[in-house]
């Protein structure tokens, strides 16, 4: 649903005015909670579940447990994610096999949820695991469901028990019951009973499902539910819980773009774990369910948590504070700049990092163009300088520059560009650190993408108002470092080496915004 922005964007929006605050106020949290509520509703999480959920998140966000190392938006995202994973269940459960074979697995669900296809997938999966599954055709309702199961069984290479032709003929309870004896005789160790699709409100068919359950006494009753289902998931899940008391849930059609809020609703309302996910039309498209991945999917967050963790590790707080001091006292040198860049690189490949950001799929093209080599080359130039040169760029005369260019394998022009940009930017930072409004002296026009205004003012504001909270300030400074780095990478901007890389080379505004966002905005 590209129509709506993802949650992390919205949170960033909500927290736009929060910079400088160390703690979340009630009003801030409530604003965020509203956005979370919308995001969950758009992901089709049932309203009752959303209400409980947002209540819990609110309590926790206002509590004292929040992680001070993260900025407020990140804190909330982390809480939300924790809560989601908690509801979805931490570890995925596996099928519980009977001590004495055959293990009986019954499938139940609405029409069109994908039960028959799932029966085939499950059978194939079990067969690969050295089981001998038997498929039982107890859907005698839908035209040619029996035929479909037979075809599926053939594709999976497993046996099928279909004594009745279906299409309304035959008694499914009897078929199910007889199948157990058949399986015992023929020594099949798993029996998978495919039942007809039924609506939660259809009392008669629900009773029939209950009868089948009693007749076969299954070890597992799997409730098969379409990931695309909406608010009705709750009513349906409750009806099936009352009717057949399922033991676990299987989510189908996860290969679509539904956010799958139903998973959360069902898990939360029934307390039953989701154990499998079906992700395609091929019989092999079947996998155990991973709660944490689903949590990110529901919120449309990408792998933002991993990103936060990495950012947390990579930024040395003391270092960041020292840099901030330097801005203020005008002693920011090329050496400091180098250090910041190395810190950035500690976080791992920039491309990989960007890939983890939500919505990054859309900017694959730009990611391809993002040249990490620029950073490496800038680094090389600085490292070819003597300590004295790094501390005082005024020393850099013509012959020194020539030496540096040779040492780093670059041209004098490249060195000149770097030094010029560094000086201009350092000057600007000084102004900002003193609280003045800079007129962006050294910033050359951005190639292509450009800074279109948005990220820049943000940066200024931040530098202008230092947080009293050390952790918060560290995050700010970290973001500052980030603000510098993308420029370095961008063709012809900031500290970057513009030469030969002016076409589509720079990170786009989107990328920059994304990077800045994750780095503490």
């Amino acid at each position: 649903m590209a129509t709506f922005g993802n949650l992390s964007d919205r949170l960033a929006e909500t927290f736009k005015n929060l910079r400088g605050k160390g703690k979340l106020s009630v009003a801030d949290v409530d604003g965020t909670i509203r956005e979370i509520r919308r995001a969950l509703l758009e992901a089709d999480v049932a309203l009752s579940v959303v209400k409980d959920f947002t209540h819990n998140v609110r309590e926790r966000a206002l509590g004292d447990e929040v992680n001070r190392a993260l900025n407020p938006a990140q804190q909330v995202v982390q809480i939300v994610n924790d809560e989601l994973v908690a509801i979805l269940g931490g570890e995925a459960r596996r099928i519980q096999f009977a001590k004495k074979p055959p293990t009986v697995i019954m499938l139940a669900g609405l029409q069109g949820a994908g039960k028959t296809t799932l029966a085939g997938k499950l059978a194939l999966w079990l067969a690969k695991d050295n089981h001998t599954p038997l498929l039982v055709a107890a859907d005698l309702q839908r035209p040619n469901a029996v035929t479909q199961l037979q075809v599926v069984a053939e594709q999976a290479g497993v046996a099928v028990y279909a004594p009745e032709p279906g299409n309304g003929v035959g008694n499914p309870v009897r078929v199910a019951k007889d199948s157990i004896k058949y399986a015992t005789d023929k020594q099949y160790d798993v029996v998978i009973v495919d039942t007809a699709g039924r609506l939660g409100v259809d009392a008669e068919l629900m009773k029939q499902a209950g009868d089948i359950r009693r007749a076969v006494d299954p070890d597992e009753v799997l409730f098969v539910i379409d990931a695309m289902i909406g608010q009705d998931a709750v009513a349906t899940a409750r009806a099936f819980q009352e009717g057949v008391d399922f033991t676990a849930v299987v989510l189908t059609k996860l290969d679509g773009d539904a956010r799958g809020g139903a998973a959360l609703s069902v898990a939360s309302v029934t307390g039953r774990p989701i154990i499998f996910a079906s992700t395609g039309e091929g019989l092999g498209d079947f996998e155990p369910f991973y709660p944490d991945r689903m949590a990110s999917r529901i919120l449309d967050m990408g792998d933002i948590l991993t990103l936060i963790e990495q950012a947390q590790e990579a930024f040395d707080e003391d270092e960041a504070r020292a840099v901030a001091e330097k801005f203020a006292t005008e002693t920011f040198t090329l050496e400091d700049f180098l250090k910041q860049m190395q810190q950035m690189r500690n976080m791992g490949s920039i491309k990989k990092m960007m890939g983890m950001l939500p919505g990054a799929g859309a900017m694959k093209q730009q990611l391809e163009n993002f040249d990490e080599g620029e950073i490496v080359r800038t680094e090389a130039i600085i490292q070819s300088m003597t300590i004295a040169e790094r501390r005082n760029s005024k020393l850099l005369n013509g012959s020194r520059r020539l030496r540096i260019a040779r040492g780093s394998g670059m041209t004098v022009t490249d060195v000149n560009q770097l030094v010029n940009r560094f000086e201009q930017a350092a000057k600007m930072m000084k102004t900002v650190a003193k609280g003045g409004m800079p007129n962006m002296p050294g910033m050359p026009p951005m190639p292509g993408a450009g800074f279109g205004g948005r990220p820049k003012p943000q940066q200024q504001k931040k530098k202008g108002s230092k947080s009293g909270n050390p952790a918060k300030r560290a995050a700010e400074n970290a973001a500052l470092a980030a603000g510098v780095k993308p420029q370095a990478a961008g063709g012809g901007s900031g500290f970057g080496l513009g030469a030969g890389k002016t076409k589509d080379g720079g990170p786009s505004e989107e990328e920059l915004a994304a990077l800045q966002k994750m780095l503490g905005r």
Partner: protein
Amino acid sequence: MAQRTPWSLTGALRGMFQKQTIDDDTWDDLETALITADFGPDISEAVVAEMRANVAKYHTEDPKDLQRMLRESLEERLSRLDPTLHLSERPAVVLVVGVNGVGKTTTIGKFAKFLHTHGRSVLVGAADTFRAAAVEQLATWAERAGAEIVKPQQQGQDPASVAFQTVARAIETGTEIVIIDTAGRLQTKGGLMDELTKIRRVIEKQAPIAEVLLVLDATTGQNGLAQAEAFIEHAGVTGLVLTKLDGSAKGGFVLAVQEKTGIPIKLVGQGEGIGDLTGFTPHVFAAQLVG
């Protein structure tokens, strides 16, 4: 589930309309009811705001007025588009598309029966050559509906060629209406969506397509909009069919679909029986929904 609850918001709204006056809880209840009916946060908010404005405008405090205004508002939103099916071409080719498991084949069976009882000759084409036993399922329905069927000549035949043969047969035999079943496909599968475009193209070589019906499952949530957008792009959908309204789901998302895409709802399916398909009437729909 002791009782078969009717498809309607009545249950959710009952408490609200039985109160003496309209108060703050009323608005919460209304929003809850709309969201629970899958209208989605955007439309729910818009409807609540509209109702609030109307209540203020007419200085009413009677929940009965609110109920009437809600019904009228929904009816008005639903009736902005023309729900008539256009089947005047001969043969009139109807292509039925949708994601997996929404009830395409069942809908075709019911639709064929409906047309047959109105004295039209119907030919169905089993272009779902992918799913196991889909052809047999359609054949059973065709038999029940009294319609002819064109089946693929071999396993896994190109669906476009089945569609082509179906239309060719209809022209040959002078059949009035052709309904073509397609395999269910998730809107995210680019290759399968392109296949639909191909089916369309191939049919149009012989006869113009009268209607492309997108079947939507009432239990679907907000993903329904994404489905509609993708199918409109690739298959040129001209009408929506809402199925499984006999369950407890309200299918509120179709309103968002209709408003955002401008494609009208044309048919409504309400059960597994062959007669459980009706044309879409905004008035009846809104009245049933609101009560």
